[in-house]
């Protein structure tokens, strides 16, 4: 396959039809047809976005009360830039503080050396005095060298916190849902046993789970000192809520995928007399991967959506907490910052969705899903 074919396959697998007309145009295919493609996938969405921003500006001028105002697109943009600048400043300040502390450590160490030398030369009665002084300086040096800046997390830090939490919760959900789904799919008996649970718990609102998750985690942590704990309680509560909500789509899709493996593939396995494990790994799992990934895609979307709310309630560091704290803060730029967060949350959700589509397409040969 030539470069063009490869790029086109890439567009298809990544679920990005946006790029396709450009690739074809670059390859010198019919210009008119590609222009239609470009106007459909690029110009039209751009127009829609422009229209939306126009409406938004108009709304921002109208929706004004004494205490607050709907932030305009420019205000939002500026707030976003400000958030990034604040992050950069914070990092710079942290770095400066760290540097300062390091110099302090070096100086203290030099002092300690000096006292050591003095102690070596000094007479008996002064010796212990100098030694004590040297010891004190050494301690100061160690303390200064181990300094970590403890400033409040910035917007970027909160994004990273959220990503870590959702990844953790999603991995746990996957680790639970896929094995159970495979069992349900393979055995109608297990499926019959699990169906009541799945059907009752699946539609439960995410936030109803949160107190229950919190109770379990408080119980699990009852004996441990919070300093020693690997994860904070709030983090685990958020992650567990994410898991409990994003479990179901994967579970249901895996069950369906495994149960609906083409009978012909199973017949192939039977003719070859594959063992149970071989049948599972060589036939059933590969055959159900596309549906499994379709489920994972929905799960990750649900998980990300739930995380923001869970972070707000559990006061776990993350975007949800950022939004909530900013709202409570109530300064003049609060609403602009919140609006900017909304856009960032949406963009991250979009990236997750693309990644999952891409993974799904990679495992479903010759049957790529529409984006």
């Amino acid at each position, binding site marked *: 396959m030539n470069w063009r074919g490869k790029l086109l396959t890439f567009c298809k697998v990544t679920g990005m039809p946006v790029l396709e007309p450009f690739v074809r145009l670059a390859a010198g295919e019919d210009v008119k047809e590609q222009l239609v493609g470009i106007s459909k996938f690029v110009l039209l969405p751009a127009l829609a976005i422009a229209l939306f921003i126009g409406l938004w500006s108009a709304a921002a001028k109208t929706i004004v009360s004494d205490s607050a105002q709907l932030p305009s697109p420019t205000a939002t943009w500026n707030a976003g830039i400000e958030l990034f600048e604040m992050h950069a400043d914070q990092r710079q300040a942290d770095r400066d503080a760290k540097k300062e502390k390091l110099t302090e450590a070096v100086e203290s160490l030099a002092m300690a050396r000096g006292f050591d030398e003095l102690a070596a030369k000094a007479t008996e009665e002064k010796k212990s005095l100098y030694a004590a002084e040297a010891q004190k300086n050494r301690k100061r040096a160690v303390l200064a060298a181990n300094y970590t800046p403890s400033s409040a997390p910035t917007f970027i830090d909160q994004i990273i916190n959220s990503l870590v939490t959702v990844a953790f919760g999603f991995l746990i959900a996957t680790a639970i849902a896929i094995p159970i789904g495979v069992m349900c799919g393979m055995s109608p008996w297990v499926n019959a046993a699990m169906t009541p649970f799945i059907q009752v718990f699946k539609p439960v609102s995410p936030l109803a789970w949160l107190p229950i998750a919190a109770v379990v985690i408080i119980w699990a942590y009852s004996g441990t000192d919070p300093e020693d704990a690997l994860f904070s309680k709030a983090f685990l509560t958020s992650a567990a809520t994410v898991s409990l909500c994003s479990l179901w789509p994967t579970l249901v899709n895996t069950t369906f995928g495994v149960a609906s493996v083409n009978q*012909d593939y199973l*017949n192939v396995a039977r003719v070859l007399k594959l063992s149970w494990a071989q049948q599972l790994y060589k036939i059933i799992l590969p055959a159900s991967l596309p549906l499994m990934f379709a489920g994972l895609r929905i799960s990750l979307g649900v998980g990300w959506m739930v995380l923001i709310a869970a972070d707000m309630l559990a006061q776990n560091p993350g975007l949800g907490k950022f939004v909530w704290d900013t709202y409570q803060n109530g300064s003049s730029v609060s609403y602009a910052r919140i609006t900017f967060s909304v856009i960032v949350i949406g963009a991250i959700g979009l990236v997750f969705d693309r990644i999952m589509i891409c993974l799904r397409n990679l*495992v479903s040969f010759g049957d790529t899903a529409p984006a």
Partner: protein
Amino acid sequence: MSTAVLTDPKTKIRVSQSSAPQPIIQMREVCKGFGSGVTRNEVLTNINLNVREGEFLAIVGFSGSGKSTFMKLLAGLETIDSGTLTMDGQTITGPNPERGLVFQNYSLLPWLTVRGNIALSVNSVFRKWGRGERADHVEKFIEMVGLTHAAHRRPHELSGGMRQRVSLARTLAMKPKVLLLDEPLSALDAMTRSVLQEEILKIWEEERQTCVMITNDVDEAILVADRIVPLNPGPNASLGPAFTVELDRPRKSSELNHSDAFKGLRNAVTNYLVAVRQKSREDEAATTTAPKVELPDLEPLAMKLPHVSSLTAAK
């Protein structure tokens, strides 16, 4: 009885005649249906057949008459409801690589390449062989069906004919004692079909393993087979009389078209099939519109076939 062909004494005699030398697969009074109670659907009834060691047997029949069901019984993928089904004197209880089935719809695993699909069979069947030996075996069969240039491709990147080649290679590579082909060529266009027909024939003439092929094309059956057995239309389908093809091998479809024996045999088989279908339609009409009325047990005119022995004698 509604199936006149089944009770036709001549048929029974012919079946027992054909059981002469060394049957490798033996079917006695085999019945098969699906579902239970009111949704019960009897597909095959009273199937009697002996497949002889080393012969090429073709089963011809109309769509939906139960050909694939018949093949799945032979492969052991479905179990018989009554009767006996044995291979080398032992009851067939389940599938076995000894009876390699080429599926009607290829059934290639879409996540494996051509090589991967064939290797899966080879690795599962010849577990005791060394790694290199198995790899060589796989390459040999990829080459045999002429797919060396496409060995790294996945099924969705192949044409129908290429897929069927892979499917064939996958089954041949298992070195089955009996090769079962379920309409291997019916999904292909006429050109590809005739090319593959000759290839199958060539491979079979080298190996001479027992082969049962299902087809809906009488010409194809005559080209490849030693014997042709029609499957009457269902429900309650049974086998018709066997037609022996005594044309010299190797056969070429271009030459056959001018042979009188070929034409005669083709007419005989076709007439038989048309007649049984006509009969089954009449039976069906009789049972659905006026189920209570007793119909006289008449044979339709077209049932009067030229006798098979006279046909082969004419050659």
